[in-house]
């Protein structure tokens, strides 16, 4: 394969192709998916002159390395990390022109978890149901990258929205999640609702693209009867029988039978996606 493409040299712990997801199919059991930190994905696209919804790479913890087969503009953003081109330090958070055959190394995140890598023209794998996103729950879209994967790129330079050095808030020390109670807060004891609003939780290492799992005081239910499965939304705080809340992220199941005590504001979920295991979490109830 020649022409506009990038080859994967080092896939990293988990690197997937993501755009802004495939809304509109939840009734078929297909979740929206898409970049976990959509603001970062939009911004790296703007840095290389793409439309905000172009497909990018989303890395996890230890980045990835790719070799473009053509000269291409690349931007790395999201979690701060070292960027190297053929071994030489290159800028993070801004557009970098890379020659054909060079190796672009996205290093381990110094803060946060997920870096986003945009290429001029965007990753042009075949869309599935209108999106190029990898959905790890349903197995839709391209498989997570492996060594040797070759990803086609689209034609460069279609859109220009010049941005150069954008302000980039670093991941916070304490992840504050604004939560609107309901729809099933009436299934929890007053003590559980008080604990949710006042106690400290921590991000569990078992977190993934499906959900941010939390460690901390278990939330006790006042109603223990089974709940029939019902539709789930992005940001839902589902509470399984062990009482430890799970905040649903982009690859969450479309229906579920555990009660949802509240829903986190969508604007806070990008920071949730960047919270490393052990990060302190506080829920702030809002109307």
């Amino acid at each position, binding site marked *: 394969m020649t022409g506009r493409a990038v080859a994967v040299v080092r896939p990293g712990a988990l690197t997937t192709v993501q755009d802004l997801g495939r*809304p*509109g*199919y*939840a*009734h*078929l*059991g*297909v979740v929206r998916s898409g970049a976990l930190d959509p603001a970062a994905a939009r911004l790296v696209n703007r840095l290389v002159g793409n439309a905000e919804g172009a497909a990018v790479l989303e890395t996890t913890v230890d980045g990835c390395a790719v070799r473009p087969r053509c000269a291409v503009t690349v931007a790395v953003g999201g979690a701060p990390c070292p960027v190297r081109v053929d071994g030489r330090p290159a800028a993070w958070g801004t557009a970098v022109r890379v020659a054909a055959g060079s190796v672009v190394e996205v290093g381990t995140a110094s803060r946060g978890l997920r870096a986003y890598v945009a290429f001029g023209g965007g990753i042009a794998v075949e869309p*599935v*149901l209108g999106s190029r996103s990898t959905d790890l729950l*349903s197995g*839709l879209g391209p498989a997570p990258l492996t060594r040797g994967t070759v990803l086609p790129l689209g034609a460069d330079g279609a859109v220009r929205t010049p941005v150069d050095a954008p302000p980039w808030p670093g991941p916070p020390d304490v992840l504050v999640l604004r939560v*609107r109670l*309901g*729809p*099933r807060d009436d299934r929890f004891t007053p003590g559980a609702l008080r604990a949710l609003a006042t106690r400290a939780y921590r991000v569990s290492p078992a977190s993934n693209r499906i959900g941010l799992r939390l460690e901390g005081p278990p939330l006790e239910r006042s109603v223990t009867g089974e709940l*029939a*499965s*019902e*539709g*789930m*939304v992005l*940001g*839902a705080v589902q509470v399984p029988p062990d009482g430890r809340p799970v905040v649903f992220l982009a690859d969450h*199941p*479309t*229906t579920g039978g555990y009660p*949802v005590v509240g*829903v*986190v*504001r*969508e604007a806070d979920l990008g920071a949730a996606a960047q919270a490393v295991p052990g990060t302190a979490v506080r829920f702030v109830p809002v109307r």
Partner: protein
Amino acid sequence: MNGNGTPSADARVRVLRVGERALLVELEGGAEAEAFHAEVLRRRAAGALPGVREVVPAARTVLLDGVTDPDRLAAELPGWEVGPLSARAGRVVEVPVRYDGPDLAEVAACWGVSVEEAVRIHTAAEFRVAFCGFAPGFGYLTGLGERYEVPRRATPRTAVPAGSVALAGPYTGVYPRSSPGGWQLIGTTDLVLWDTGRDPAALLSPGTRVRFTAERPGGGSRAGGGR
């Protein structure tokens, strides 16, 4: 549901806020949820629900996500007049089945009938996809009636083959792809339930009417199917 928007109709619908932009409508039961879902789709098709991006029916709820003014819609929903679910409405899909599933005899025993009679009962019923979940294109089909409910298997299988026709609780389902599963397997179909290269990707989407027909081993439908 009872026609004239009487106050008693309101008590049958409970609307719960879900975050900033979604509403969960809780109905009395499965049939009411299916009728309410059909009403939501009718109104959305008529342009009455701008912005609503997802409409997700489930066992006794309908979720609306992407609601532009949730407070206003939440106030309106209980007053909706919901027409009865028309037996004639919806796309019809016929699913040819080889009734050779490993749990067919157990299901027949659970119903207290012979295997042949169990097949007759399953092919005579009119099904409707109440909702999807579990995996893309996995539909929960209602239509068998309460007396034919069956329990899930005590130990789920680690791999249920694609095309397996299966029962659990009041539902019939067809596995779109191989996956773990705890439903009782009664047969197999060669139909492709889920294909993202096809439009529509899901053969069985909410509201689709379904009939199962018995296929003899080696192919060919047994005529009649009991009706």
